[in-house]
């Protein structure tokens, strides 16, 4: 069995500043996986790298054993809510139909079937009554649910979500949680950037602890403990941080692998 996502020796640099070092893991199938770590640990960057939005300095990512470009329709992405302009002139349904674009050839318009799938997705997040509403008139939690509906409309196998629980109301939080569980029962794999340590054990099966490098990765019971939390959140990694600072001052040249 090929893992949903295989990350091999991934190192990432922004403007030549390394932000993630040698990340290496296989994602577990049909699990809810939390990605946790302090601010600036590179959580969003990791998701973006898997989605091909940032180019790694080295290493590679495989989706079910194949490069991302061949597997795009298997993987859905929920960006951070703040990443778009919510005053943009479209309504809720328009936004969710964008999730169908990945199945449409360029220049083709979405059809009846796409409309049906989009509305089903809205129904699942409890936003169908709002389908005609202009997106600027949604609350934060509603915006988040609409974003999730767009990803659902992609009908993917793997879902990568960047802070879906951030700044949402209690009703949305439980709606999202229900949705995650439904996805898991349907055999999907969901990786979620999460910032609320209180709920990690309750909401998720596995956890990936990140702080510039991968501190720990595994089932909650095995890795979600004080020692690893201490390593992830406690203090800065002295030498690694210094080296990162060094690469900012000098030109960072990543040599290609020798394998």
């Amino acid at each position: 069995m090929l893992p949903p996502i295989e990350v091999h020796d991934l190192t990432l640099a922004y403007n030549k500043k390394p932000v993630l070092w040698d990340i290496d893991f296989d994602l577990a199938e049909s699990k809810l996986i939390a990605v946790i770590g302090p601010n600036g640990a590179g959580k969003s960057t990791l998701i973006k790298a898997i989605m091909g939005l940032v180019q790694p300095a080295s290493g590679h990512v495989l989706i079910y054993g194949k490069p991302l470009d061949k597997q795009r329709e298997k993987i859905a992405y929920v960006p951070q809510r703040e990443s778009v302009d919510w005053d943009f002139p479209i309504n809720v349904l328009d936004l969710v139909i964008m999730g169908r674009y990945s199945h449409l050839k360029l220049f083709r318009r979405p059809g009846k079937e796409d409309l049906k799938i989009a509305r089903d997705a809205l129904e699942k997040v409890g936003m169908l009554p709002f389908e005609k509403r202009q997106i600027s008139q949604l609350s934060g939690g509603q915006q988040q649910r609409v974003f999730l509906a767009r990803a659902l409309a992609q009908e993917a196998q793997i879902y990568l979500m960047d802070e879906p629980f951030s700044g949402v109301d209690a009703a949305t939080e439980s709606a999202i949680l229900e949705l995650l569980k439904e996805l898991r029962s349907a055999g999907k794999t969901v990786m979620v950037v999460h910032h609320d340590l209180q709920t990690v054990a309750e909401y998720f099966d596995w956890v990936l602890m990140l702080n510039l490098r991968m501190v720990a990765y595994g089932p909650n019971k095995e890795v979600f403990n004080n020692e690893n939390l201490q390593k992830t959140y406690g203090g800065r990694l002295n030498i690694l941080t210094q080296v990162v600072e060094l690469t900012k001052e000098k030109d960072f040249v990543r040599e290609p692998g020798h394998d």
Partner: protein
Amino acid sequence: MIDSLYEFFSFTDPNVNYVLAGTVLLGISAGALGCFAVLRRRALVGDAVAHAVLPGVCLAFIVVGDKNPFALLLGALIFGWLGIIVMDYIIQNSKISPDASIGMVLSVFFGFGVLLLTFIQSSGNVNQSGLDAFLFGKAASMVPLDVIVFGTLSVLIIICIILTFKELKLVSFDIGYAQAIGYPVKKIEFLIATLMVMTITVGLQAVGVVLMASMLIIPAAAARFWTTSLAYMVIIASVVGAFSGVAGSFVSYLAPAMPTGPWIVLAALSAFLFSFMFAPKKGEIARFIIHQKNKKNVNDENILKTMFLLEEADERKQRGRSIGEILKRRRMYPSTAKKGLNRLVRQNLVEKYAGQPDLYMLTDKGRKRGQRIVRVHRLWELYLTDQVQIAGDHVHDDAESMEHLITPEIEAQLTKVLENPLIDPHKSKIPES
């Protein structure tokens, strides 16, 4: 003037028709494309590109020796693109911010263009007359070949926008997501940039490089007031663009020596001002009316609330209250209170007491409304002291404004979190819902 208007719109003069067709097509393509430039916050890039094409146009003229539209087009395309590449290169490879980079490209390219223009003008080439029209536009200087070339280009741009509407929409709204689902984002951005350079080139003769950006920006800005749908926004912006084009050619017809660019801009601006004032919901007047309505509503609710509080104090429902009694309990202008009471009587929320002209009493319906306001006020105060830990003497003013805003859903939530409370922080009884 009336005669000219009649002649102009009788469409009998083929020259006028050519110019008119050219400017209308320009207006449509610039208006439509401008929506994407404005929504992607690239309006200033359009301005920089418009200025950057000037040296290209001048160089084309120097090489070819006359105003051949194909040569001008090529020159403009090359320099428009060069401007975009230079801007992006500076932004990506230095710490210079986008606005500085845009400003540099705009002024340096334009300065170079003016230099070349001066050089051409002093060279004594007989064909150069009218080249300065490229600065501020002269619709009348368009010859049929210009209109055919640039008109075709406009049609091409419009077709491109219609065909790639879905792609343009997604890339403008959420470029990261577009990339994540495997869209050729780089190619689409290249397409948008090319369409922009083409539109600017089309507008060279009618509007001129200095004011061309306004044709991209103003129609889109005006359209934004009327709709919340991207498709309609594009259509409305096209109409505004076309209208501005017609106005420009008309002025050019009346006074052929006058530069048309400023007139086209003024026409677009009038459409913008009209939208700004009169658009439903988003226009200034509509917003003013809504604000007045809200103010009246708040005022009326305050009267209902005050009358309920008076009843609560003396526990007498069947008693007429004078305006003076109401004003003693809550300060407001006597005239506002009087007007509010009249409105409330008309809405059957308040009635005159026993036919007396100056005594008022709540109807059952009015009492319910007043009671709800008091209830929401006290619930909110309790919520602030209990759950948000704000001191009791700081919560009243906040509750004064929140009582008019809190929806029944939030009221239900408050009741639930506070476990159906009976007493507020100031020991007053919270009335039932």
